[in-house]
């Protein structure tokens, strides 16, 4: 299968479409023209792109939780609760893991068992099984825009059904929903499938319906250095834009060192804009999202509140367009609606208290920003090179060659050579560069930083140090110092 970053022709698109809509009975509920008319009447307050643009214009950071349960009625109640008592600005519909792996049969069983046991046995909302009308009733039951959040390598049917179902934003991408979310899926396949999903978004855009698209920023959520997630975000922006997406939110998972996090957020939008313009896309609106710490959480709920709050600080001080909120139940399981609302409320308080404050562009921030820019450009440019100018081909070959490599990812198409570790200040650096195409200056920068930590800790930097860092926040610190 050869993949190019080329817009799917209308013909190709419609051909595939037929197959996609046949994957599950609910596929036949999708009628594109009718869906466009449905979207036309959606009020402004329920349109994702509109709310994001307002937020950027007024300098507000919007709050969005994660949430999804098996049954429609329960899901609606959950969202209404988060809207009313959690004061969420944006809502999610998190999809269950069976649907994410296109196991609609298993999802069906999960629905049935959930009905029987009066509790959700699925870890999300099985939107495909529920179908178009159910999705619309979800969207219509709240006052704010709702996004589909998932982790689905092949999300074509999910996109068809949920967009026809009135959702105005769709998370994911052919890389970010493959590498961290699956084991055996070829990148060729998932990128192709996401070209379809993006083309669908573009097709809506051709009919004046703007759907927000959001590459999944945090990847594995575990010590991902900014340049890695930035590179994936940029590539996915370029892939989406090529298919006609007009409104994209690029994301980043908080690392914990404020200087690095702020620098990452400042460069994220800048670099996305830079590459889009360079590739000729001048009308794509870029907004940003910061994910509160995505790695392992402390068990104690009070401590979890501090982690949540620190994420809120990073989002507020870096002026993220929106922040994805964790809950005090994070380390334990899918949160109750109350726990979910309490994460939102803590975040709200912090965001609003910090509204007037910005993190200054100090020398340290400028240095960090410059490093992130250089690293990211090394990676993305090398993808263009190896793809002979085509970034779709480039990213596939790049993963093969390890020019880009996501730490701890489950996919066998990810090299898994790169090892991240924190430096003495808690910023995330590279202990092992694998095959990342970095200049020797960049490498020296990382090595020096890590060497300083090694001196502090009187030990060699090795896998044990990485493990200590993986556990660190859940054990109450940022840097996994030896005890």
């Amino acid at each position, binding site marked *: 299968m050869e993949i190019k970053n080329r817009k799917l022709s209308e013909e190709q698109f419609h051909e595939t479409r037929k197959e996609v809509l046949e994957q599950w009975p609910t596929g036949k509920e999708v009628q594109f023209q009718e869906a466009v008319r449905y979207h036309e009447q959606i009020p402004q307050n329920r349109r994702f792109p509109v709310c994001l643009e307002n937020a950027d214009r007024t300098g507000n950071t919007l709050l969005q939780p994660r949430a999804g349960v098996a049954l429609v009625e329960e899901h609606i109640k959950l969202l209404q609760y988060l809207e009313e008592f959690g004061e969420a600005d944006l809502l999610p519909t998190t999809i269950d*893991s*069976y649907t*994410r*792996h296109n*196991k609609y049969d*298993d999802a069906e*069983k*999960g629905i049935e*068992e959930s009905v029987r046991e009066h*509790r*959700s*046995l*699925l*870890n999300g909302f099985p939107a495909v099984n529920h179908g178009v009308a159910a999705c619309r009733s979800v969207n219509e039951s709240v006052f704010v825009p709702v996004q589909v959040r998932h*982790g689905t390598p092949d999300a074509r049917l999910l996109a068809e059904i949920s967009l026809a179902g009135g959702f105005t934003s769709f998370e994911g991408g052919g890389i970010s929903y493959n590498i*961290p*979310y*699956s*084991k*055996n899926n070829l990148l060729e396949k998932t990128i192709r499938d996401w070209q379809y999903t993006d083309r669908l978004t573009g097709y809506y855009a051709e009919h004046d319906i703007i759907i927000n698209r959001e590459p999944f920023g945090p990847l*594995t959520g*575990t010590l991902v250095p900014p340049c890695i997630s930035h590179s994936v975000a940029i590539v996915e922006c370029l892939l989406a834009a090529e298919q006609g997406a007009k409104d994209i939110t690029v994301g980043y998972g908080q690392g914990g060192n404020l200087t690095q996090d702020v620098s990452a957020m400042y460069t994220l939008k800048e670099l996305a804009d830079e590459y889009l313009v360079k590739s000729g896309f001048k009308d794509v609106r870029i907004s940003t999202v910061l994910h509160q710490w995505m*790695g*392992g959480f402390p*068990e104690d709920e009070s401590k979890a509140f501090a982690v949540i709050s620190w994420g809120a600080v990073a989002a507020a001080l870096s002026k993220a367009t929106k922040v994805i909120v964790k809950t005090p*139940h994070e*380390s*334990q*399981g*899918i*949160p*109750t609606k109350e*726990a979910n609302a309490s994460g939102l409320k803590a975040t709200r308080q912090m965001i609003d208290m910090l509204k007037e404050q910005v993190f200054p562009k100090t020398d340290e921030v400028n240095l960090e920003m410059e490093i992130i820019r250089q690293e990211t450009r090394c990676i993305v440019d090398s993808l263009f090179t190896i793809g002979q100018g085509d970034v779709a081909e480039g990213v596939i070959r790049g993963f093969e060659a390890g020019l880009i490599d996501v730490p*701890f*990812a*489950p996919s066998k198409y990810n090299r898994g050579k790169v090892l991240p570790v924190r430096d003495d200040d808690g910023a995330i650096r590279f202990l092992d560069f694998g095959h990342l195409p970095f200049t020797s200056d960049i490498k020296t920068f990382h090595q020096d930083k890590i060497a300083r930590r090694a001196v502090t800790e009187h030990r060699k930097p090795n*896998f044990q140090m990485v*493990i200590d860092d*993986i556990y660190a926040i*859940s054990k109450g610190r940022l840097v996994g110092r030896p005890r």
Partner: protein
Amino acid sequence: MNNTVVLGVIGSDVHSVGNRILEYALTEAGFHVVNLGVMVSQEEFIDAAVETNAAAILVSSLYGHGELDCRGLRDKCIEAGIDDIILYVGGNLVIGKTPFDEVRNRFEEMGFNRVFPPGTPPETDISFLKQDIILNE
């Protein structure tokens, strides 16, 4: 002591971080680890255990579908003739914050020998594992 153990994350679960660490810690502790990685089916667990004549199967489930995914694993072991193999399970086994006693009960009833709560440090698993293998021999 038979020091071969099969390790993996069951079902459609892709949480790979804990799995990496468990592999590392078990190997460091002297086990021969057959790590099937993430998204492992019941059949794959059993095939690997039979093939490598493993002393134990260590099942992880983080994503919440553990209950649905783990049912019947012990029966399949019996069918495959590895009736007595040690079965451990750990992670975020059910959906939502739940008193651990309840969780333990549910999984012990399914035929697991030991059930571990989220955040169990590898040292704990390892010391139980050594004891249980020796007792089982």
